[in-house]
């Protein structure tokens, strides 16, 4: 219940924020919020339960395509109401949850690299479904998503991007609230118990397999919601939006933000949106000869993005959240033990991934 109060304050602050920002910032904020839904779910799965998934980008596709199909089905029957979007998003979440349950049952028996391998297969195979059943999913070209303009009650000049930000932020606040409650609940403790020692957990009467499947299902539902928001933001769905790169980006946000921490998930999601934009802005005004410009076109931002990530991981192996915590903890006491954080992180990661 404490979380509910914080969530209400956060929602109010974010609502105010969308009025302060210009439409492009609102859109960036919306994108970060959509990422956050998936990253928060994934950080719980990896950090709290020790299951590594490389397939969450593909699970997002299962959340996104139903939104397109349901919205367009309503529109084709001449039904246009804002409520259809809620039905569409819920359908997306439901589909992703079911798929997550199927993958989760298989995943519950696997550990470490085998689990990563299985989810990698999901990430690679799912986008191909769109071309195999191109009659429904329209192949590589994908589907457009029918969306109504913001409700008329908000006024004629209400930016569409602010409306999108509201939708995505609502989804993100809801996701983080539910996950935060889960974090502190009996279920959260069960997750950690299974992560830390399966045998001990079993002796304590925890049904390990069921817990692992449930954790996967919850994070799949989060990924589904994120995918649904992606469909709302891009107003289109296509296989190229849900490739392995997306799955890896989600994982990157989890690790760079700080493994297992919801606040870290926020950092990670923001970085996913802001870092490419920042790098692009930095490199845009470089005066280069046409020859060099052609060689670097598009590649320089990617290279810088990678370099920045390497620097972040060296400087803050515990992720951004770990760095902040470290700063807060060590400022009064003086200096930190050299390499301590790194060793702790390495041990933690080994713990979580190789069990």
């Amino acid at each position: 219940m404490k979380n509910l109060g914080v969530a209400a304050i956060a929602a109010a602050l974010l609502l105010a924020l969308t009025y302060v920002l210009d439409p492009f910032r609102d859109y960036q904020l919306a994108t970060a919020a959509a990422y956050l839904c998936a990253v928060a779910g994934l950080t719980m799965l990896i950090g709290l339960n020790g299951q590594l998934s490389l397939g969450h980008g593909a699970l997002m596709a299962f959340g996104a395509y139903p939104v397109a199909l349901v919205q367009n089905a309503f529109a084709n029957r001449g039904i246009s109401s804002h409520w259809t979007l809620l039905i569409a998003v819920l359908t997306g979440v439901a589909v992703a949850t079911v798929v997550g349950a199927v993958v989760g049952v298989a995943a519950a028996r696997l550990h470490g690299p085998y689990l990563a391998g299985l989810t990698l297969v999901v990430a690679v195979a799912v986008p191909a479904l769109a071309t195999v059943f191109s009659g429904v999913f329209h192949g590589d070209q994908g589907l457009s998503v029918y969306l109504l303009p913001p409700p008329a009650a908000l006024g004629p000049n209400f930016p569409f991007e602010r409306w999108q930000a509201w939708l995505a932020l609502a989804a993100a606040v809801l996701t983080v609230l539910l996950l935060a409650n889960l974090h502190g609940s009996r279920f959260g403790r069960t997750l950690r118990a299974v992560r830390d020692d399966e045998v001990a957990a079993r002796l304590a009467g925890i049904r390990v397999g069921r817990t692992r499947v449930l954790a996967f299902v919850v994070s799949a539902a989060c990924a589904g919601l994120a995918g649904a928001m992606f469909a709302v933001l891009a107003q289109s769905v296509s296989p190229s939006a849900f490739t392995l790169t997306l799955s890896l980006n989600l994982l990157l946000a989890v690790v760079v933000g700080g493994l297992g921490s919801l606040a870290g998930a926020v950092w990670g999601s923001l970085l996913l949106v802001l870092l490419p934009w920042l790098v692009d802005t930095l490199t845009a005004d470089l005066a280069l000869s046409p020859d060099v410009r052609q060689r670097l076109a598009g590649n320089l931002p990617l290279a810088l993005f990678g370099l920045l990530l390497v620097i972040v991981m060296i400087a803050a192996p515990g992720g951004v959240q770990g760095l902040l915590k470290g700063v807060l903890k060590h400022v009064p006491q003086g200096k930190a033990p050299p390499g301590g954080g790194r060793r702790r992180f390495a041990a933690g990661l080994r713990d979580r991934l190789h069990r």
Partner: protein
Amino acid sequence: MVAAGLLLASATACTDDSGGGSAGGSVPGVTETEVIVGTHHPLTGRAAAGYSKIHAATKAYFDYVNANGGVDGRKITYKVMDDGYNPANTQQVVRQLVLQDKVFAILNGLGTPTHTGVLDFLNTNRVPDLFVASGSRTWNQPEKYPNTFGFNPDYTIEGKIIANYIKTSLPGRKVCVFGQNDDFGADGLKGVQAVLGSDGIVRSETYDVTNTNVAPAIGAFKSAGCQVTVSFTVPAFTALAMGTAAQIGFRTQWIVSNVGSDYPTLAGLLKTEGTPLLEGMLSPGYLPSIFQTDNPWIVLFSRLNQQYNGNAPLDGNVIYGFAVGYLFVQALKAAGPDPTREGIVAAVEKGGFTGPSVAPLRFSANDHSGYGGLQMAQVKGGKQLPFGPLYTTDDGTGPVQQSDAVVNPPPDNGIPS
């Protein structure tokens, strides 16, 4: 849950520098000294090969114009964003161009799936969406998208003109169609069927860009005994199809869609040992070929390519990029000394543009499609050269007509007056 506060803090932090590139006057992207236009192209990813040369040539042309005083004293700044051919990225970068960088117009946005997603956004923000780099018929909807204009001849008229050529020059042959599994292939097939009838095609197969195994389709063509194979393919798949056909001993007369038939690009993909496969390939075109070395437009663009484009290897993409730049400068000049967004849209609708193409631009108040005609070309002795008359038609049931291909040479300084 500190998270929300952090989000607030970090997000407000980045509003401080949002003013970059905004216009001083009332027209977005236009100041006394500058006009900013933007675009989205695939600079990375699987679609980048070949297509990534287009924006550089357009930029080089603008650099040339800027070095000669610009347009009405304004320099043209061309802001190119990489979308990696991913529609989700296109949404992000086009919003950045319009909302943050405040561009005057979007010029030559590339790709059907990518650009389709931003049509509504550009329309609600009343941004001129000029000369889209794709042959989809989607761009020609003046009532729904009054600010969007195409550039390429659409794939349906291309299909009709190819089929008309088969009907007159290759009669009685077994015709097959190979197409990309999206609007590109479907519109092309529709055009071929409009002329030959649906029973005039022996076999039709499609491919997906994500699956490089075209052997089943090519095998089906071989067993159907296709004598003429019409191919609505991007360059990589043109090369794949030809290579696979050679491997299984399938001989056919290839007729390849304009976007997938650029000789230097294909020769680069097929390497030295595969290049002989291109001999005899037919393809329709509307811009001059780089092998027409005495064509005054090719002379001009080669010179500018050398001076302003780092002497990039000349191919169809480079010529295309220069043609886009030339057309935009004409449109901007036609919009008058104080261009507005409404003004340039009206100027494009008024039409009357000239340029390197043998084909006419169709722009009018109720037609926003690009070039309306094509001329056949064939590879002979390693040179891709156009021949025969120019053909024009519409994307419906209208007849395919011959017309005169008259191209005026460029002005002496290479800048439209």
